[in-house]
């Protein structure tokens, strides 16, 4: 894929993931404002329900991709030293991948508890 096409793909990805994240955040805001779980059992039941597990998995994936595009743009704009930039990008990628795996593991453990 050409550099321009890769940039276009990132641009589209940023908008699709952004729209999905916005919808999920509105759901979360509604949940905690109007139906905040009062205890552990209620909270676990909310998180473990199939609809929430699937949409939350997609949410974490969307956040991972959205954050990668955004933070990558910022690093490329402000860090000009090639080595530092590469180190920064690798660090961000590792933090995001690690966070994504961690979040997925929490969701799956909750389903199986």
């Amino acid at each position, binding site marked *: 894929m050409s550099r321009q096409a890769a940039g276009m793909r990132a641009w589209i990805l940023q908008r699709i993931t952004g729209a999905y994240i916005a919808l999920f955040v509105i759901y979360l805001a509604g949940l905690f404002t109007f139906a905040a779980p009062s205890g552990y059992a209620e909270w676990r039941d909310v998180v473990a329900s199939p609809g929430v597990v699937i949409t939350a998995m997609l949410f974490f994936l969307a956040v991972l991709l959205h954050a990668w595009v955004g*933070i990558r743009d910022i690093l490329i704009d402000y860090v000009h030293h090639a080595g530092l930039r590469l180190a920064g990008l690798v660090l961000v990628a590792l933090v995001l991948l690690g966070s994504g795996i961690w*979040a997925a593991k929490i969701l799956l453990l909750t389903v199986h508890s």
Partner: protein
Amino acid sequence: MQSKTQRPVFLDLQILTPRLPLVAILSILNRATGVLMFLSAPVLIWLLGVSLDGPAGFARATDFLDGILVQLWLFVLIWAVAHHMFAGIRFLLIDIDVGVELEQARKSALWVLVAGGAVAAITLIGVML
């Protein structure tokens, strides 16, 4: 022999535009709120894990959320999420050619700032009530 005119001549073209236009402030804020959310994500995932780690974990999570510094962080984070979301909606509208003209772009930038601030204010009122 010394030249009468001092060269190069510095033309302060900055005076033609506002020092920091609203749309530029919005762009900077979008990046700042994005970085804040990125840095906050691991803490939030940790908190999610603790809150789902049995009734004792849930109690630990709510205790953590009661801390005054944590509340301050959460407040800024809620504002950041709201602001970033409204700014994103504005970008999506500009993508489909709504509000591209400078005057409209300035106006919508102001609305994004107001809407983000309004969510923060409502949160603060909700916490105090």
